[in-house]
């Protein structure tokens, strides 16, 4: 039985497709002046907003749920504000409830933006429209990201689309360095957290980063994308994530990244392998109390996550030691200076020795003084 149902469904789909092609072809065959105005062409933005604008008393609810609300002002000031609704929503052909979906494409950010960029390239306007190039790059990055992969529970959908993070109807990333940009930046934890990553948002809001951003509105505090990246976001179990995360934390914590890179943990990570300790292995990822895992009382337990047999001395090992801070790392400071002095003296002596030897022996050879019988005395 299910097979028959499936087949019937296919047949209906096929029929619809064929008739749609037929319709489009027959319309195209008519001269433009003789073509009747289609319903879609009469659908201007005001017509759409008469139902979808959020400034109405209340959005209507249809059988499919409440209507998608559009903020008239936000849309107007967004990068897409000049566009007609049906430029993206090509499948909408009428103003009826529910819409009778036509043969046109559903809103497709990726195809449209790729087309725009191709056109810009053909018209040699890539410099003027550089922003479009950025979008296309972001799209390419996105395609390899965790968000672009099919959702585990519903394989027909990807984990997140453009609209899930960008709200395409108000999309407008303010230029860097403006106060609007700062405000926009501060909204990011909620963008990620409210719809999908609610557990992480809860943890994050109690962390030192979260308190800075959500509590004190300090734009210098890290938000999700500062550590996890934006379009190229990867599953945290993948090596790509494990390798990029250290650089991302290090973007702010530069000194700590530098000292981390001088230990085996950081060296192996730099080589492109994710298995040694990364920032979050010791400091936690969205921790409530940042001191808890590295507090001397808990530190051995933290080390033992990887070093199962770790002994007491691990607690006083400094994973972020450096050679210039005598106050905190006196032994490292002393030993590094001893080693540099040793190297300097050994090389100074022997390279001088080598250089002079080269000079003298070459001169003696030229003068044919190298033959043993010409040597003076042999004791």
């Amino acid at each position, binding site marked *: 039985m299910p097979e028959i149902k499936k087949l019937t469904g296919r047949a209906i789909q096929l029929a619809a497709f064929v008739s749609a092609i037929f319709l489009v072809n027959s319309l195209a065959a008519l001269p433009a002046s003789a073509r009747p105005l289609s319903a879609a062409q009469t659908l201007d933005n005001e017509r759409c907003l008469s139902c979808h604008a959020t400034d109405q008393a209340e959005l209507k609810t249809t059988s499919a749920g409440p209507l998608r609300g559009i903020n008239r002002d936000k849309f107007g000031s967004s990068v897409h504000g000049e566009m007609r609704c049906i430029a993206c929503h090509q499948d909408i052909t009428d103003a009826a409830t529910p819409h009778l979906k036509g043969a046109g494409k559903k809103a497709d950010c990726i195809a449209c933006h790729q087309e725009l960029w191709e056109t810009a390239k053909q018209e040699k306007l890539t410099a003027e429209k550089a922003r479009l190039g950025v979008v296309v790059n972001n799209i390419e990055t996105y395609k390899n990201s965790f968000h672009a992969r099919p959702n585990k529970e519903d394989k027909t959908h990807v984990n997140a689309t453009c609209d899930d993070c960008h709200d395409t109807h108000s999309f407008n990333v303010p230029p860097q360095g403006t106060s609007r940009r700062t405000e926009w930046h501060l909204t990011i934890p909620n963008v990620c957290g409210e719809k999908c990553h609610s557990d992480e948002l809860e943890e994050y809001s109690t962390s030192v980063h979260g308190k800075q951003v959500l509590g004190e509105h300090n734009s210098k505090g890290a938000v999700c994308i500062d550590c996890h990246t934006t379009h190229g976001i990867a599953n945290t179990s993948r090596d790509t994530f494990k390798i990029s995360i250290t650089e991302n934390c290090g973007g702010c914590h530069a000194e700590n990244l530098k000292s981390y*890179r*001088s*230990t*085996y943990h*950081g*060296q*192996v990570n*730099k*080589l*492109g*392998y994710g298995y040694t300790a990364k920032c979050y292995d010791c400091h936690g990822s969205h921790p409530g109390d940042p001191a808890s895992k590295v507090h001397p009382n808990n530190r051995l337990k933290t080390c033992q996550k990887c*070093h199962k*047999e*770790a*002994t*007491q*001395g*691990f*607690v*006083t*090992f*400094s994973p972020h*030691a450096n*050679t210039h801070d005598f106050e905190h*790392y006196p*032994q*490292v400071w002393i*030993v*590094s200076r001893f*080693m*540099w002095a*040793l*190297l300097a003296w*050994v*090389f100074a002596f*022997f*390279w001088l*020795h*080598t250089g*002079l*030897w*080269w*000079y*003298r*022996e*070459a001169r*003696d*050879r030229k003068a044919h003084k*190298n*033959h*043993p*019988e010409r*040597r*003076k*005395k*042999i*004791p």
Partner: protein
Amino acid sequence: MSHRTTDELPQGKQVKRFGLIWRIAHLSFALSVMLLILTGMAVFYADTTWAPVIMQAFGGPKTAGIVHRTSAAIMLSIFFMHLIGVATNIARNWKTFRWFGPDSLVPNWQDFRDVYGMFRWFLGKGPRPVFDRWTYWEKFDYWAVFWGMAIIGSTGMMLAFPNVTASLFPGWVLNVATIVHGEEAFLAAVFLFTVHFFNNHFRPDKLPPPDVVMFTGSVAIEEFKREHPAQYARMVRGGSLKKHLVDNPPRAFTLGSKILGLTLIAIGLMLLVLVVTGFISASTK
């Protein structure tokens, strides 16, 4: 007078300088040290573009770590077997062995006079010193290995067994061991591939490289007379020269030794390039 003695010598003879076991030891030591440098420097200079390539070639840091430790085990066992060999030799000749004599590698006052004499010669202020069996730079090469084994070996062991180390010492010992291990290895690598290579292969008198005495074991009489005139004279006086003469090594053996020598030199110079680029990129960051 000395060249008259040479003329009386049978042609096609060389002077024996290194026995087979010492030559095998030197070769395995060189190979294991090169592997240690390659696998170690790829971690020490992880920031370079070449380091990840080396790591991938080894199949990742875990495999490279096994190669590193295996090479270390080989290197250390050669060193300790050498110690046993030397101790047996000395014990056998206990009554006659002269600790500060010309056949001993123990530094003596003559070495310091030779250093002074060499610098005088460099500056054109005196004749070139004449050397006996071991020159001071050869003695330095020899004793530098003791220092290197003690320093790099002990810190390497500490890092290879961090749980033991951290149960005996405070944690900063591991910090210090990391620095000492890396810096001392840098010293050893750069010293070997510049100073040691120059002294033995790239001096004008030695050109073209390689000097194969450490692979064939013997050296042409002419060269021996030139490089170790004091020993030569001592042998002639004591009548023991004939005892040390050996036939010219077979042509194929000499050719093989040259190829081997050039290969090792080439690898060493490549390692030197890697280490130097690593050093430059680390210090310009």
